[in-house]
């Protein structure tokens, strides 16, 4: 018998039992290879979306790498069995940990680093593909001696395909639902280790230093088992990295995706993935939104809030005893409903929606205002930032014309106006647009740590003077002294030229897109 690891480049002539054992390994190898491919494809489409593209590119890279592996197999000329065993261990590690690695990479890099994540993804897919591509040629060469080429090709490929079939059925039906992606890949990594162990056993007599190989198997096997034990933690960790906090509510309504997260005492609201408030510092945002204007109005009675379905502006408004009636117009019934009924959230807005002074209208603010005849002493315009044309309409001159038409002669309106620091031209575009309909403007800003520097504009028919007093007590942020400083703009936020935002030019959406694109917060 020739030493399989020896210089003859020929493995031993495996007997029947050994051959069957090797065919069984082919079956397992094939299943593992397919599992890693599916895991990468599923994960990337899960994380990046667009499943057709993700799957095709992952499969393309994977198959190409397999080809490269098959081609490279000709350079393995000695100690075939040993190389095969080492190969199995490499596949076990890279494939077994692939899902965990990708999750962590994505969590670290986040949604904004799609390109970096894809680099990691394709590199990993390429490495695994290449290793898997080496497997079958090596097995075939190990078996080459004992079988005719015809038999060899027929049997090996049969088991190869059978393995693929088994996994293709098990993956969607059993593995993903019961084990999840991370555990599935770890379990299949262990199967690769088993194949390696089996091969050591089969060829124990021909292998030199089999103990070293056994130790290696043990090391890889144990790390995979450790991975399995920690899979739960790993998953949670990476999701927490992704979403930072625990999601306590999420719902896709007709209009938007509402997500609420909670982390210790911090509750956050996201609309379509954009942060609307963090309970840690929303008081800064809402006190700055309401009090500079409302405290300056003598005897405010009738108030209108457009947007602001979280009720937090309402909470501040209701602190003024002279107010008789507040109308809140929000597009999304689901928003106002959960902020009325959810215990934690209604605590946050001090049960504003249960106040008899408040009436909620579910309507499109533009359309509603168009059909209204009432005048208001104070109008709060608190819409999401102008990220698209639909929202851009709510910052147009036509819209502010309506605001002007419903603002009483001595009334004040306040408009949330994105960040004068990150989106400077957008901010001043809003100011110019408000002015273009004949309203006077008083721009101001404040720091809301979870947002950064934030901007507002007070609009009025009569000149606005910051109040000497804040008419209500119990505030956490605003004092009459700080209030007057908000109207000063440091150099990097001062006015820049900007066109008026009209329905027929949607300038603001263009400015906004450019600015946030170039310098995200």
């Amino acid at each position, binding site marked *: 018998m020739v030493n399989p690891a020896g210089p003859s480049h020929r493995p031993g002539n495996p007997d029947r039992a050994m051959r069957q054992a090797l065919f069984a390994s082919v079956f397992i190898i094939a299943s593992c290879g397919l599992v890693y491919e599916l895991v990468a494809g599923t994960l990337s489409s899960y994380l990046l979306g667009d499943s057709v593209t993700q799957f095709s590119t992952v499969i393309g890279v994977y198959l190409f790498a397999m080809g490269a592996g098959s081609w490279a197999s000709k350079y393995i000329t000695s100690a075939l069995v040993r190389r095969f065993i080492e190969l199995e261990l490499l596949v076990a590690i890279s494939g077994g940990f692939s899902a965990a690695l990708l999750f962590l990479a994505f969590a670290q890099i986040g949604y904004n680093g799609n390109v970096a994540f894809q680099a990691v993804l394709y590199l990993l897919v390429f490495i695994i593909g290449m290793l898997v591509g080496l497997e079958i040629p090596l097995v075939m060469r190990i078996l080459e001696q004992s079988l005719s080429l015809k038999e060899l090709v027929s049997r090996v490929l049969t088991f190869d395909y059978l393995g693929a079939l088994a996994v293709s059925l098990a993956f969607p039906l059993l593995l993903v639902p019961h084990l999840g992606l991370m555990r599935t890949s770890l379990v299949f990594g262990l199967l690769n280790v088993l194949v390696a162990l089996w091969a050591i056993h089969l060829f124990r007599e021909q292998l030199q230093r089999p103990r070293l190989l056994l130790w290696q198997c043990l090391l890889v096997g144990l790390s995979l088992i450790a991975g399995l034990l920690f899979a739960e933690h790993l998953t949670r960790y990476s999701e927490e990295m992704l979403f930072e906090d625990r999601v306590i509510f999420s719902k896709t309504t007709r*209009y938007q995706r509402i997500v609420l997260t909670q982390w210790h005492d911090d509750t956050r609201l996201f609309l379509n993935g954009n942060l609307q408030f963090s309970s840690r510092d929303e008081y800064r945002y809402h006190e700055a939104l309401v009090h500079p204007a409302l405290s300056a109005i003598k005897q405010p009675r009738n108030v209108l809030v457009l947007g602001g379905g979280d009720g937090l502006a309402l909470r501040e408004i209701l602190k003024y005893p002279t107010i008789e009636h507040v109308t809140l117009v929000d597009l999304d019934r689901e928003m106002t409903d959960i902020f009325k009924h959810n215990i934690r959230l209604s605590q946050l807005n001090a049960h504003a929606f249960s106040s008899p002074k408040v009436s909620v209208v579910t309507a499109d603010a533009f359309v509603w205002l168009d059909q209204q005849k009432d005048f208001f002493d104070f109008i709060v315009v608190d819409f999401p930032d102008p990220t698209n044309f639909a*929202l851009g309409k709510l910052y147009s001159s036509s819209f502010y014309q309506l605001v002007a038409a419903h603002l009483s002669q001595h009334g004040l309106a306040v408009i949330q106006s994105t960040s004068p620091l990150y989106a400077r031209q957008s901010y001043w575009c809003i100011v110019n647009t408000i002015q273009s309909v004949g309203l006077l403007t008083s721009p101001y800003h404040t720091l809301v740590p979870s947002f950064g520097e934030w901007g507002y504009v007070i609009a009025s028919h009569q000149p606005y003077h910051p109040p000497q007093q804040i008419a209500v007590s119990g505030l956490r942020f605003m004092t009459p002294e700080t209030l007057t400083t908000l109207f000063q703009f440091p150099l990097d936020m001062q006015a820049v030229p900007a066109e008026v935002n009209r329905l027929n*030019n949607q300038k603001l959406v263009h400015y906004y897109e450019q600015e946030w694109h170039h310098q995200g917060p």
Partner: protein
Amino acid sequence: MDRRTFLLGLALSPALMHCQRSTPTQFGGTLLGPNHMAGHQLRQADFPAFSSTQRTKVAIVGAGVSGMAAGWYLQKHQMDDVALLELEAEVGGNARSGKNTISAYPWGAHYLPLPNHDNVLLKQFLAETGAITANVDSHRPLYQERYLCFAPQERLFIHGQWQEGLRPDHGLGHRERAEIQAFEKQMQVFREATGRDNKPAFTIPLAASSHDPQFTMLDSITMAEYLHGQGWHSAPLHWYVNYACRDDYGMPHTSISAWAGIHYFASRRGQAANADTDQVLTWPQGNAWLTQQLANPQQDAIHTRQLVHAIQLEAHHVTVDVYDLTTQQTTRWIADHVIYASPLHTLPYVLRNDPSLTQAAQTIRHAPWLVANLSINQPDQLNGNLPLAWDNVLYDSAGLGYVVANHQDTQRYHDQLVLTYYRALAHSDEHQARQQLYAGTWTSLQTSIVQDLQKAHPELSQHILNMDIWRWGHAMTYPQPGFLTNQARQLLNHTHPQLHIAHTDAAGISIFEEAFAQGVRAAKNILGKNNHSTT
């Protein structure tokens, strides 16, 4: 199946399953068009003799833009004794509209470009309607923002992707781009040019344009010939200019006079304080908003479902025989003047005793058109790489694209939309095109429309709730080479003692501004004569 395809198939199976779910849903719709029976009846001259008579100073035949503009102007000048006789149940003609639970929508004309500074009367009318809110006399009036087309105005689906604007750009080579730029530059030159008669080379109404032969010469060749003559042969430029000709005139640039083709690009100089020159005025119901404004003050003069079937020019008056589609009786109107504001291919059947005019009317050519209104759900699927615009055009398509009727809504979200699809059956052979149009069934037309749009919207058919289709057999006239100096057209525009032709057929090109100017011109002629006789 080898391993590769097996793997690919397996991996894609969720995506494939998704596709399979998308079996086309069934939707309904109706085939519509102008009153067909009336045309037939006209040709047969199959009407009862008149059973009553009425008197009026001015009888206006047809309450489209031109007819109602005449009425509007007459009323403005204290001429109230007017009868507007309209065949259909609704006024508006080519600018009529429909309405369903989702939106109002146009069946024809749908926009008006910013009028030129010297188009004083049109601007005055717009100011009366509130479309111009201030500074009507200035070079840059202030327009009602809600009527200016909201941004984004246009996008073009070209080489598998949407681009902003209709001028092809995405995926073009350097040479192709340069040619389009050269063309635009030349059009700018024409836009600013004046002739030796000190008139603008190209303006609206076209009759006010310069007669300088260096420009009118262009009327002797087609627009395609003009482009080739300039050394411009690239496909994207030809597509662009051809699109403009099909869109405005309903015929390919190989059939359109180069003068008219250039007129489209070079005649518009209108400015606004709050809009760019290339922006347009539009409404959900299209120009039916304008025709409604024209109709409102003269409601009392308008008589609908009245088919004018015979006009006799007498020595001192005109008789107009009108068949009432409701009572099925003929009334004879005895008028001092008649304004003919109906398509001229009907004139030969109506005007019995003026062979020269009849003959002239027979030379007028008409392009057939197809308009469809599609109600759809899940509008998001129409977005693609750029959000939905007002006008959405497909490069290299048989149609002219579609306009979103809801585009001028201020509302943020729409669950459903109405899309108005346009197609000029721009065939060099007009009769064949018309036959093709009438041979189509709702099913065949609907299928070809869906097929056309599917290039940009593969899933569209699943989202259509309803599709109504309107066939315009004689939609509008189009300017062939030689139309400027065409004798027949000149005869039709000539003032006759009692008969005044106002329809855009006689203007040579069919746009709102021409219809408006034609109507006003007819009214002025009458007022001039009237003043003359009373003083």
